[in-house]
């Protein structure tokens, strides 16, 4: 059952499961998701703490929060409040961007960092589309780019109650708030990635065409102790599409 935790004045919905080393999981732009196959798998090895970002799920979005920088400080405050030590920081897609913004600021609470197909940096020229424009492509095209098996990415509104659909709509709006412009990145972030001073694992699906594994090299080249591992038969969401492999890669890295 999710609980609520007040951090710096913000009511955050929080999923917490498992025992052992703490692992802070920052979800993708699609929210924690109705299905959370990653949660039980990670919880076999870790004490998983998975907040819904402000504006997603049951978490509040106060007026004064509006940037990924705000989210980074908020989660650093969460880590301090929970007195996390020797923790693993995991961020997926949009959550990977947040995790990178945290890590360039302060890594004291964390011993390992995992970025799963993170967004957040700019590699190419002005006219290179580093990150697929998910808000200009048809839904079918987004799913085809984001999933190795697109049938798994089909959105069926009939599965959800009105209250759940309202959370989904609110989450989409919140993702736009944080990532519309510049599109899903911070033009300055790449310059500061060198500050990340903990072992960092980049995880990438071999079929990811939202951001390709080549995009991940932009992180690898800037973070001192970073390596990139590829998950087979997997698109942009390893936590959803290959949850077992996802959890194994993390456990192997952070053991």
């Amino acid at each position, binding site marked *: 059952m999710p609980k609520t935790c007040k951090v710096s004045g913000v009511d955050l919905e929080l999923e917490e499961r498992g025992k052992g080393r703490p692992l802070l999981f920052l979800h993708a732009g699609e929210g924690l998701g109705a299905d959370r196959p990653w949660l039980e798998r990670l919880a076999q090895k870790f004490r998983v703490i998975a907040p819904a970002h402000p504006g997603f799920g049951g978490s509040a979005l106060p007026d004064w929060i509006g940037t990924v920088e705000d989210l980074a400080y908020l989660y650093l405050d969460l880590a301090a409040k929970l007195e996390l030590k020797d923790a693993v920081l995991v961020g997926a897609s949009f959550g990977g961007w947040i995790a990178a913004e945290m890590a360039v600021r302060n890594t004291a609470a964390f011993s390992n960092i995992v970025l799963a197909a993170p967004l957040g940096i700019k590699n190419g020229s002005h006219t290179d589309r580093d990150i697929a424009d998910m808000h200009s492509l*048809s*839904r079918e095209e987004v799913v085809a780019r984001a999933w190795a098996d697109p049938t798994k990415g089909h959105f069926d509104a009939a599965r959800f109650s009105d209250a759940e*659909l309202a959370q989904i*709509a609110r989450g*989409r*709006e919140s993702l*736009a*708030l944080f990532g519309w412009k510049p599109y899903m990145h911070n033009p300055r972030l790449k310059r500061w990635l060198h500050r990340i001073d903990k072992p960092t694992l980049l995880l990438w699906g071999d079929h990811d065409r939202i951001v390709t594994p080549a995009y991940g090299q932009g992180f690898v080249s800037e973070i001192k102790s970073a390596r990139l591992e590829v998950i087979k038969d997997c698109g942009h969401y390893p936590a959803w599409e290959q949850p077992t492999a996802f959890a194994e890669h993390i456990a192997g890295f952070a053991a």
Partner: protein
Amino acid sequence: MRVWYFSEMAYHPSWEKGLKTGSLRVNFPNKAVDPHEAHKLLHRYLDEFRACDEAGLDIMVNEHHSTATCMTVSVPMALAIIARETKTSRLLSLGNPIANRPDPVRVAEEMAWLDVLSGGRLEMGLVKGAPYEIHPANSNPARLMRRYWEAHDLIVKALSTTDGPFNWEGEYFHYRNVNIWPRPIQQPTPPIWMTGLSVESGIMAAERGHVIGTLLSGSAAGPMFSAYRKRSAELGRTAGTDRFAYAACVGVGATRAEGYRRADIIAEYVRTSVVVAEPFTNPPGYNSVNANVAMMKGGSKGFVKDRLGNPVDQRTATLEQFMDAGTVFAGSPDDVYTQIKALNDRVGGIGHLLFFGQGGHLDHKDTLENIRLFGREVMPRLRELNPAPSQKQAAAE
């Protein structure tokens, strides 16, 4: 009732091609425009605006971007020309999509300049803009209205402040020295208009006393105007009919058949203007959470509804369906007057008709006859219906 002629200055020669690709807007490559053909069309459309002055009509201009449906990219640019070519028409900018504009002070400057140039004939629409305007402007659809209201308040302050400079350090906009020259003739500001489709828009406009305009759907107009009147009453004000504007396609002819023919051609604009690739129709945050839930459950049904409240598909509707919905007024001058009167009565009274009198394939000759016949045969009767307060009265209130 005042009547404001408008045309979106469409580039209709490429519509057929755009319809085949499934999008006339945003991602329809501009190689489909022949700029020399566009040159001829722009001059033709501006001539048609000029004819309104002689016909006793007021003039409205709007703008859209990256689209074959509308070549007006800048309301102030078009109105600057029209202001010089007309003498008596009032000039309505409807309007500046101010949540998509990076520089609200520039908007205030342009509006003041136009008011000065036109001798105080400007009316100033500050609009949210259509959903498919978000991508061309690349403005963030989340918190759009928060940005809108900050821009609105800044523009009003810039226009009405005479002892500046003042500074502005807001959430979205930052100026250290606002002091626009020249200032507008109409003080504190030219009359302000908003647009909307919802009850919420009606309430927001009522709280500021602005004119609220809507379009093409009597079913949307009724509840929105009603909400405006109710909110005004709560605030101790009476909302006159001059607070309400309604836009519809109008085809008038010497005979009913001729009016229908013209209206059907103009209505082709309504049928094509919504053809846009799906991702641009509903950027996240543009519509409310509740509206999005309804869309996820039932798909988008559009806002045009018939009298029984059933959705009318804009892409395929017949002239008769459009007439039933209040999207189109058509026929002889008597027919058109009767239909406008009926809509006026249905929504509780409108003070402004936004006369969409040219759409795409309606040619120059037909357009001029549509304007002149309307001005001669329909306009005088509408003036008697909900007579507009004189500008002096309005200014005194």
